C-alpha cells in the first residue's frame, strides 16, 4: 500500500486522485455510524417540528395531516399555562445559577484550603456523590424526609417539638425553596469541581507575593482568587443564559410527585410538554410548547455563544 502511495505522488493528477479517494474512504466508514445516529436521533426529529403547524391526524401521519398555521400556538398562548411555565422555567434557572454558584465557589475555596490530603479527598467525594444519582433515587431520598405520614421531618423533628406536621406535597409555599435546595444539593459537587480546578490552576506566586505584602487569607481570597475566577463565572453565566429556557425534567417531574396543588410553582416547560403529550395525548399543545422552547432556546444559545466568543473565545461552543 505504501508502495502505491509513493508511486501515486510521481504520477499525473488522475491516478493520484483515485488513490486518494481509496485512502480516505475508511474515514467515511468510521463517520457513518455516528452520522446515521445523528440523522435518526437529531435531524429527523427536527423535521418533526412541523407537527406543531399541523392538525395531527394519526391515520395520515405527519405528512398527510392538514396544515393549520399557527393555530396550535394561539391555543397555547391563550392559556394561562404558557405564562406560568415560562415564568417558572426562567426564575428557577436564575435561582439555581445564583444559589448553585455561590455555594460551589464557597466550598471550592474552602476545600482548597484544607491541608490534609485525605480529608480533602473525602470531602470532595462525598459532596459529588449526589450528582451520580438519578432523579428517581433523589425523589426516594426526599420522600424519606418529606412524606406526610412517615417522613423524618414531620415525625422526628416537628412532632417532638410539639408542632403539627406539614403536608409537604400539598403546600406550595415551601416548594421554591425545596426545589432550589435539592437542585443545589445534587449539583453543587459538579460545579465545585469546575471551580476547584480553576483555583488549583492559579499560580502560587500571587499568593506568595500577597503574603509577603502582609495580606491575610480573606484579603487573598478577595483580591486574588475571586478576580481570577471571574472568567469561569462569566463563561458559566453566559452558557446558562443560553440554557434558560430548558429545565431539568427529572427534577421538576420527580420531586413534586405530580402533585396538582403544586403545579403553579413546580411546572416548567419540559414537564408541561411531557404531560400534554403523554397524559393528555394532546399533540397540538405539546408540540407548540416544544417548538416554542426549541426556537427561543436556539436564539438564546446562539446569542450567548456570540457573547462568550467576544469574552473568551476558548470557551465558545463553536
Amino acid at each position, binding site marked *: 500500500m505504501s508502495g502505491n502511495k509513493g508511486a501515486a505522488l510521481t504520477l499525473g493528477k488522475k491516478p493520484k486522485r483515485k488513490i486518494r479517494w481509496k485512502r480516505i474512504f475508511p474515514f467515511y466508514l468510521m*463517520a457513518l455510524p455516528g*452520522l446515521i445516529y445523528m440523522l435518526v436521533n437529531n435531524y429527523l426529529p427536527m423535521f418533526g417540528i412541523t407537527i406543531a403547524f399541523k392538525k395531527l391526524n394519526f391515520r395520515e401521519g405527519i405528512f398527510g395531516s392538514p396544515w393549520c398555521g399557527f393555530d396550535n400556538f394561539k391555543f397555547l398562548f391563550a392559556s394561562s399555562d404558557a405564562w406560568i411555565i415560562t415564568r417558572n422555567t426562567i426564575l428557577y434557572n436564575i435561582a439555581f445559577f445564583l444559589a448553585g454558584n455561590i455555594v460551589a465557589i464557597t466550598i471550592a475555596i474552602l476545600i482548597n484550603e484544607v491541608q490534609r490530603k485525605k480529608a480533602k479527598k473525602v470531602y470532595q467525594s462525598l459532596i*459529588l456523590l449526589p450528582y451520580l444519582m438519578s432523579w428517581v433515587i433523589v425523589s426516594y431520598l426526599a420522600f424519606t424526609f418529606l412524606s406526610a405520614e412517615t417522613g423524618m421531618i414531620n415525625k422526628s423533628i416537628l412532632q417532638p417539638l410539639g408542632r403539627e406536621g406539614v403536608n409537604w406535597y400539598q403546600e406550595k409555599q415551601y416548594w421554591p425553596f425545596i426545589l432550589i435546595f435539592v437542585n443545589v444539593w445534587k449539583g*453543587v459537587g459538579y460545579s465545585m469541581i469546575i471551580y476547584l480546578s480553576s483555583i488549583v490552576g492559579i499560580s502560587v506566586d500571587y499568593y506568595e507575593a500577597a503574603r509577603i505584602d502582609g495580606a491575610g487569607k480573606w484579603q487573598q481570597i478577595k483580591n486574588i482568587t475571586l478576580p481570577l475566577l471571574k472568567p469561569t463565572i462569566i463563561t458559566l453565566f453566559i452558557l446558562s443564559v443560553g440554557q434558560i429556557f430548558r429545565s431539568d425534567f427529572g427534577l421538576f417531574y420527580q420531586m413534586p410527585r405530580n402533585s396538582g396543588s403544586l403545579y403553579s410553582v413546580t411546572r416548567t416547560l419540559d414537564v408541561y*410538554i411531557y404531560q400534554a403529550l403523554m397524559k393528555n395525548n394532546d399533540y397540538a399543545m405539546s408540540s407548540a410548547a416544544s417548538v416554542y422552547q426549541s426556537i427561543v432556546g436556539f436564539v438564546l444559545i446562539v446569542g450567548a455563544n456570540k457573547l462568550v466568543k467576544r469574552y473568551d473565545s476558548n470557551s465558545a461552543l463553536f
Partner: protein
Amino acid sequence: MKSREYRVTQLLAHLVCGLFALMALLPFILLIVASFTDNGWATANGFSFFPKEWSLDAYRYIAVQWDTIGRAYVMTIVVTLVGTASSILVTTLFAYAICQKDVPGMKVLSFMLIFTMLFNGGLVATYYTYVNYFHVRNTIWALILPNLMMNAFNVILVRNYFVNSIPYSLIEAARLDGASEFGIFFKVVMPLSLPIIATIGLMTGLMYWNDWQNGMYYLTERGGGHLYTIQIILNNINENINALLQNSSATGGMNIKMPSTTVRMAIATVGILPILVIYPFFQKYFVKGITLGGVKE
C-alpha cells in the same frame, strides 16, 4: 509554629466542608436505615436514623420477588454494558473521522454535530419519530438509542484528546508500515486514548444506569415489562403512589399492587448499591470527566 490565622482557616474549612459532606451523605444513610427498619414501626413512627425495630423483611421480600427484581437488575446491567460499549465505539470513530482535516466533507459533519447542541426537535417530535418511524416501543432499542448513545459534548472531548495528545508521527509511522486506517485506529489510537475513553465511558455508563425516562416514554407494562430496569421499576412505583395520592377518593376501583414503604426503600438501596461500591475506585475519572467537560456543559 502555626499562626492563629492558619488554625482559624483550617477550622472553618473543615467545618463548612464537613457540614456539606454530611448533608450529602445523610439522606443515603436514612434511605439504607429505612430499608432495614421494621415496616410496622416505620409506619407508626416514621423513618428515623435510629429505629427501635430493625428487620430484614424488605430484603426477604426482594429475595422472594427476585424474578422481577433480578430480571430488572440483569436488564440494567445489559443495557448499561451494551449502551456504553456502542456509545464509546460510535463516539470515538466519529471523533477520529472528523479530526481528518484533509478529508473532504468532515467540516460539514463537524458542523452537523455542533448544530445538534443548538437546536433539537424536542420531546414531541423525537417521541413521534422513534415510535412511528423506528417502532422502538417495547423493544430493547428504546432503552439504548434515544438521546443516550452519542452526544456532541463527548465527541468534542474525544476529538480534542485525539488532536492534542496523540502524536501524529505515530500514525504516520503505522501508515508507512502498511497498516490500514482501521488498524491504526484500533491498534494505535485507541490504546493511547484509554484515559479519555474511561472518562466518557464512565459518564455514559452512569447515564444508562440511571435512565428512567426512555423506559417511561417507550415501554408499557404489558408489552415491555420484561425490559424494565431497576430505575424504571422505581419510577413506576412512584407513578403508582402519585396516582393513589391524586385520586385518594377513587382508589377503591384502582387495582394497584403497592410494595410496602420499607420494600420501596430496599429496592432503591439495591439500585444505588453498585454505584456506591464502584464510586471510590473510579472517583478520579468522574472528577476528570467533569473538569474536562466542565465549562462546556
